[in-house]
């Protein structure tokens, strides 16, 4: 059980097995593949990313005709005002970069406050 002080007062306290309270982003696993964004039924996830050519020989190697690029994640947001906690994003992520985190998302004074960025999502449930 997580009796953490970030839980919205009065909200049910999820336990580790069943808690659909919030979702944590493990950024180093995310490849910006867009699958979660496209699978989300409520369109609550956004990804901003760009591609960079890999440095030196990894990117431009004489044995390859095409340059190799890698996606770099610039921003990842979940709008908790839209999320219905279905977990399809977690299920579909091929790299396990999303996982359930214990406590419920706190309320906010306005809708903008319910859009959590990648830093907030990385810490979901950790305090």
């Amino acid at each position, binding site marked *: 059980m997580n009796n953490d002080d970030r839980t919205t007062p009065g909200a049910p306290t999820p336990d580790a097995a069943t808690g659909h309270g919030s979702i944590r982003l493990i950024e180093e696993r995310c490849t*910006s593949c*867009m*699958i979660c*964004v*496209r*699978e*989300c*039924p409520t*369109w609550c*996830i*956004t*990804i*901003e*990313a*760009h*591609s960079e050519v890999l440095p030196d020989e990894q990117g431009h190697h004489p044995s390859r005709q*095409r340059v190799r*690029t890698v*996606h770099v994640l610039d921003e990842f947001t979940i709008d908790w005002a839209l999320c219905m906690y279905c977990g399809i994003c977690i*299920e*579909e992520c091929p790299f396990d970069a999303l996982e359930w985190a214990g406590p419920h998302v706190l309320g906010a004074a306005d809708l903008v406050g319910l859009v959590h960025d990648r830093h907030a999502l990385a810490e979901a449930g950790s305090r």
Partner: protein
Amino acid sequence: MNRHGDEIVQTTSEQWRDAVAAALAEGFSWFDSLIGIDEVGRPSGGDEEVRVVVRLVRHDPEGDPQGRQLHVRIPRELDQARLDSIGDLVAGAAWYERETHDMFGVSFTGGDDRPLLWHLDTPRHPLRKDELLAARLETPWPGAKDPDDDTAQASRRRTLPPGVPDPQLLDDPSVTPAELVASLGRARSRRARR
């Protein structure tokens, strides 16, 4: 039998009311639900049909409850999507018939077709698959972004969000519901569950 252990009985619009009455007489007296399924675009075929399903349960004091589903396929055309009402056989079914009329445009002869959930001057039937989701058409889809847009690898194929049809078909008055539904963006097929 389906995977939930329900007995599935296929019936016709002529026999549907009698099939419900027969199930009730056999003890399937607990009314679970009545709802439609728009068959357009389903692999089973039947692009011109709506399926109506009623589920009844027999509660056996000795053993497990048994479910029976009566399935009937009727034409999708609004003026032909019609069944006999079972509201007088099963108390409470009238509400489900009204909901099925709201959502799928199925009328129930002898029943009550007043709107229950969906009050609009112009009737629309939101659970028909060719009913356009206006908010989905107007809202920018976050999945349209492609991180490779700025490189030579940018995908030529534009993906459509699930449930949104090919925009070119929207202006074509001759398009059929089946063509519209076939053009809808699809969700990726789900990975096998562990």
